[in-house]
């Protein structure tokens, strides 16, 4: 095991811890009256593994469960939290709240909470990249990664998007986080097959299906897929098998969740697994990890302070940005 590998894993762990702490803070805020939110607790390895495989020139589309993708991409928890609280310093000036945060400066575009909307827009973003003259691209050879869930795969637009991407040879990485839940309905109640990648293959796209709770496996698969897209100009499909450990939207008592299934996946918590792996490697000690956890807690505390001190938007901004 090389020093670089350990360094990479440590960095990935810190990002995953930041995501976890950020979302747990949002849960606490919701309990105090802030708007609810969709957390990605349990799915941090998906976001970190894929986003780490991308470059600055690449673009990301995401959905209602976007905080992990945004934080992995380097978005500032201060401005994310301000947005969730509806304040002016949020990435969208308080217009979005938690459900559709875009941060163009990080290449996180067109976030939509309409399930499937990311799949409908992604081919257009990738087309602009392919043509090399899009607003977001200057012929840099970037690709687009679109994150969506197993539920989104049930929308007809999933198939429309895949068909177009394959037929037009778009530089598009489909990333399905199959977390077994579609709001309050279990995946097995909505489809006969358990693999979304099997559906995708019918469209003639190359697919991989990997353990979404293993950041190393996700990162390796995503890196390979990205390299293939850059080399061939063809889209790729990545299914990440994972689990939504918290409810769909805070608050949610998860009364409808099978406790044994939940327990099974709690034991496979990607953060715990990675932490244990690092300690087992013999190259990392507990003190290093505790220092990391303290750094993360400080960042979240600072984000809270920043967000709560941020002003409410002026009523005059109610009608700004409606028309160009």
């Amino acid at each position, binding site marked *: 095991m090389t020093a670089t590998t350990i360094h990479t894993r440590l960095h990935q762990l810190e990002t995953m811890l930041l995501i976890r702490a950020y979302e747990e803070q949002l849960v606490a805020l919701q309990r105090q009256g802030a708007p609810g939110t969709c957390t990605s607790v349990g799915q941090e390895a998906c976001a970190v593994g894929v986003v780490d495989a991308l470059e600055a020139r690449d673009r990301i589309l995401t959905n209602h469960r976007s905080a992990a993708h945004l934080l992995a991409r380097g978005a500032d928890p201060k401005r994310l939290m301000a947005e969730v609280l*509806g304040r002016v310093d949020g990435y969208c000036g308080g*217009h*979005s709240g938690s459900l559709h945060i875009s941060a163009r400066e990080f290449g996180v575009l067109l976030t939509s909470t309409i399930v499937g909307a990311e799949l409908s827009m992604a081919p257009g973003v990738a087309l602009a990249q392919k043509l090399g003259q899009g607003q977001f691209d200057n012929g840099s050879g970037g690709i687009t990664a679109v994150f969506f869930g197993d539920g989104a795969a049930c929308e007809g637009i999933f198939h429309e998007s895949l068909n177009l991407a394959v037929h037009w040879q778009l530089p598009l990485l489909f990333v399905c986080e199959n977390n077994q839940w579609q709001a309050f309905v279990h995946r097995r109640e909505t489809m006969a097959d358990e693999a979304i990648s099997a559906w995708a293959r019918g469209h003639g796209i190359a697919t991989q299906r990997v353990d979404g709770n293993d950041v190393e496996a996700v990162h390796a698969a995503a890196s390979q897929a990205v390299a293939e897209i850059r080399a061939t100009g063809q889209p790729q499909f990545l299914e990440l098998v994972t689990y939504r450990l918290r409810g769909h939207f805070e608050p949610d008592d998860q009364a409808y969740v099978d406790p044994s299934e939940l327990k099974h996946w709690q034991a496979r918590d990607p953060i715990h697994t990675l932490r244990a792996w690092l300690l087992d490697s013999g190259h990392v000690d507990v003190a290093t990890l505790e220092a990391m956890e303290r750094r993360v807690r400080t960042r979240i505390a600072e984000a809270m302070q920043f967000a709560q001190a941020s002003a409410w938007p002026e*009523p005059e901004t109610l*009608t700004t940005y409606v028309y160009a």
Partner: protein
Amino acid sequence: MIHMTAADAMHLALREEMQRDPRVLLMGEGVATKRPDLVRDFGTARVRNTPLAEAIIAGTAVGAAASGLRPVIDLLFAPFLTYAMDALVNSAGKLRYLSGGQFEFPLVTLAMTGSGCCVCAQHNHNLEAMFVHAPGLHVVMPSTPADFKGLLKTAIRDANPTLFFTDMALLYQEGEVPEDADYSVPLGKAAMRRTGTDVTLVSYAKTVNVCMQAAEQLHAQGIAAEVIDLRSLKPLDEATVLQSLRKTGRLIVVHEASGLCGIAAEIAALAVSQAFDALRAPVVRITGPDAPSASSWALEQAAVPQTDAVVRAAFDLMQDAQHSGVAMRHERTAANIPA
């Protein structure tokens, strides 16, 4: 009478209608998860969790309705209706007519909307007027728990496809609801919530409460406001509005949906075309702005009609009466923003 929330009143209506008519079935993303007692009593064949796919949920409901079932579909939030628009607008709304009356589409579509929860524009979009604009559809949007029950029952029994909009902030408000399993509220019949002789306030859904509060404040100032709750947007109870207007001569229409081509515009046109002689002042619309609803509490509240805006408008109208202008020149959107 039982005291219950609007959400419980809807649930009771579903239960009673499923009991009454074996053709009634409920479909949607999570309906079975959220209503386990209906699954227990009526079975999974009639209470069906669906894949996350609004177009096929609605399309299936249309086909089933034409074939003799009476589906109720829960499409969750109103903005998601756009995925189902083809089935509802082009199929359910038109195929009775296009087939020369061979088919009927007795189906109900449930959708939530409205301010108060900071859920932003992809969950809160009062787009009811879009469906009023589509021929062949009925559209209702109640304000009291009793009406949630009564109108849902009527909608389920109605032979036409009905959009049942739920103002989400009203769902947990409580009120008296008739226990009678035969209780229903007719479509196309407005409710007179308060009588008065000076000014008519017309509204529906959450802003009925805004009008009621405004009427209370106006009463303290010696102005008697009449409050009409439309409840049903299509068919629309023109007679009740006109009758009131003939009495008061002044009309303010209030709703959260944006004003352009909206319900208030329709009511204003009704007033001008059918009771022009009765108007003693310009018709006033107090509506949401031509902007998506924002998440921020500050912006969300700035966008929706507030009580003081209605009170001020009523005062202005009482002033205007002295110079009898009849043009529709008083337009207010984004009620909290100074005009």
